[in-house]
């Protein structure tokens, strides 16, 4: 192994690490606020990438139909609660919810069918896709997790597995089995100490660093962020001081899914993304999140770097055992954490 190979592997590993870090963040965020291990996060990464590819080939992404469907189901659930369950608070909000859940997705459909045929700028594509992915978190939380918010971590996990499989099947149905690549945001290639690095990779790493800073500011400086933090530390206590745990849950899911979608649109120009690719990325992000004990953002980021670097070097030395090596990382971490005896949920 010479300097070139090592350097090239490290840059590839760091690019991967940036993605795993963002996925780990959304898992930690969702888990600490709602105690849900949301493995379906990977599907949203795939959906974002595949929607972006559909948009760039001039088609309306099928994701918007999923959004309309989910919005409709959520609204039906609300109607049920409002009239059968006689919940007056929901009844008062019904008109606003109808606009949010039914009208907005349909309007979005028309916006996309208007925009898709005239090829716009890559940055507009990304903005549209992120906007498209924005409402999913709230809907998923409302339909699936809000009714069982008090259930045990295991039951919530079983729900997540079920949602993961449903989304996987829907992904196959909506986008077909083949993978896609999207257009590069920047086609600059630079030479860093003799190692070729794509502009896209640098972009991903910088974006992750910016997002880490933004998340830190959000949690320490903004009221909403502090409310989330409070719910994560002590949900009941937060509730007592007037922070709605359901609102916090919806916000956590929304943020988590948007982060995953951002990963999807960032890596799809340099990696082939199929409907099932996201799951594997999510699992590796999960390993990073586990290293962070499912509560620490900085340790998860370090975990992501470890996973990314171990992954590329094991691919180089023993590609047959690559996945085994990466997922085996979790064992010493779990051992250490159980011996340390600090449980954070």
């Amino acid at each position, binding site marked *: 192994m010479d300097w070139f*190979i090592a350097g*090239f*592997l490290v840059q590839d590993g760091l690019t991967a690490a940036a993605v795993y870090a963002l996925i780990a963040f959304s898992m930690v965020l969702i888990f600490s606020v709602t105690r849900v291990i949301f493995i379906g996060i990977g599907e949203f990464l795939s959906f974002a990438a595949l929607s972006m590819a559909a948009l760039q080939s001039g088609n309306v992404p099928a994701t918007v139909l999923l959004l309309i469907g989910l919005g409709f189901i959520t609204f039906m659930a609300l109607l049920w609660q409002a009239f059968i369950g006689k919940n007056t608070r929901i009844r008062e909000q019904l008109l606003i919810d109808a606009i949010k859940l039914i009208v907005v997705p349909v309007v979005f459909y028309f916006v996309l069918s208007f925009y898709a045929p005239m090829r716009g700028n890559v940055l507009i594509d990304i903005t549209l896709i992120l906007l498209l992915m924005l409402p999913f978190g709230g809907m998923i939380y409302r339909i699936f997790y809000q009714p069982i918010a008090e259930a045990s971590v295991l039951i919530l996990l079983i729900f997540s597995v079920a949602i993961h499989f449903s989304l996987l099947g829907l992904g196959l149905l909506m986008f077909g*089995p083949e*993978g*896609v690549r999207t257009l590069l945001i920047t086609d600059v290639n630079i030479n860093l100490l003799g190692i070729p690095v794509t502009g896209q990779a640098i972009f991903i790493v910088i974006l992750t660093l910016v997002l880490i800073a933004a998340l830190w500011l959000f949690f320490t400086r903004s009221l909403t962020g502090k409310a989330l933090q409070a719910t994560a530390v002590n949900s009941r206590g937060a509730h007592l001081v007037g922070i709605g745990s359901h609102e916090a849950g919806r916000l956590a899911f929304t943020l988590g899914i948007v982060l995953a979608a951002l990963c999807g649109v960032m890596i799809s120009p*340099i990696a*082939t993304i*199929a409907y099932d690719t996201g799951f594997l990325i999510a699992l590796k992000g999960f390993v990073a999140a586990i290293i962070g004990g499912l509560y620490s953002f900085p340790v998860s980021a370090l975990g992501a770097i470890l996973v990314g670097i171990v992954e590329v070097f094991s691919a180089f030395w023993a*590609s047959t055992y690559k996945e085994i090596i990466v997922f085996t990382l979790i064992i010493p971490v779990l051992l250490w954490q159980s011996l340390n005896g600090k449980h954070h949920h």
Partner: protein
Amino acid sequence: MIKKICKWALASAVIALAINVHASDSVKVGVILSTTGPAASLGIPERNTISLLPTTLGDRKVEYIMLDDETDPGVAGRNARRLIEQEKVDVIIGSTAVPTSIAAAEVAAENQTVTISLAPYIPTENQHPWTFPLPQTVAVMSESLFADMAKQGIKRLAYIGFSDNWGQAWLADIDRHLIKHGLELVATERYARSDRSVAGQILRVLGSRPDAVLIGASGTPGVLPMSTLRERGFKGVIYQTHGMANQDVLRLAGSSAEGMILPTGAVLVAELLPENHPSKRQATEFVKSYESRHGEGSRNNFAAYAYDAYLLLNDAVKRIDGSIKPGTPAFRNALRDKIENTHELAVSHGVVSWGVNQRSAFDARGAVLITVKDGNWALVE
């Protein structure tokens, strides 16, 4: 009202009986396909073909009875039993996937009925006399690749393939050819279908300085190693497997696919075949009739297997003595013998010969080498 219904029921029963009596002269072909479940994307084109087939087999009338096995070997076995015991079929075509085909073949062999499978595998001793798997094996497909390597004077071959049984099958096949073709396998790397990057493996491959790289993959996941190789400046030949011969691959790979070489069945490139190619006529005819029904560019290898199964049966039934009636053990035995004696029959995928000890249908003519030139498929000269 009830009287009326009874009348209708009676009348239709009489008609059904009449048809049945009439049909005793016609050959009954049972078709088991995986039109739902994991192999559905293969089974559906096969079903599309069955609905296009002529209503005669040899000079006799033919009746197709089609069942879906849900890509479940248990269902495939039950379907085979039902076709044989209730429908009294003379022959079974199917199934689509290897496990379902084996299950159907097992039941059919037990009941002395021929199965023509649309999936490649090696029949067991019990199944052997009654089982005829049609598609090209990996060995048939790879033969042409290795011949091309010899022609191009390739000595150092590197391999990167899926970490599953497809990748393993190709690796095992390479091992068989190394000594015969004077090749040296300088690197063996694996990756998963859903991998995000293969940078590590490709650096390793390039470090072994190969003349050519064989990628044991299928579909769009096979594009990643190829594009990474080209990005890293690899100038040698890239060989792919027949799992890569589809439009999605071309769309995704873009310029990195230029010059890659892979084997495929003749139907994919029917128009490009030279006039003297043995499958030219059959392949063009099939493509024409299939695409006129299912749309431009809808052709695929699986649909053509179903068509070739028909051509084989047609040829065999033609050679059966006219006095032997379908629906009898004598007919089934005669059919088995005639199919086994099939010699140099041109079908859309190549040329089929079977024999007492031979169950691999195609020889090297069952594979056509293609490459990509200016973003389109082209034949390798």
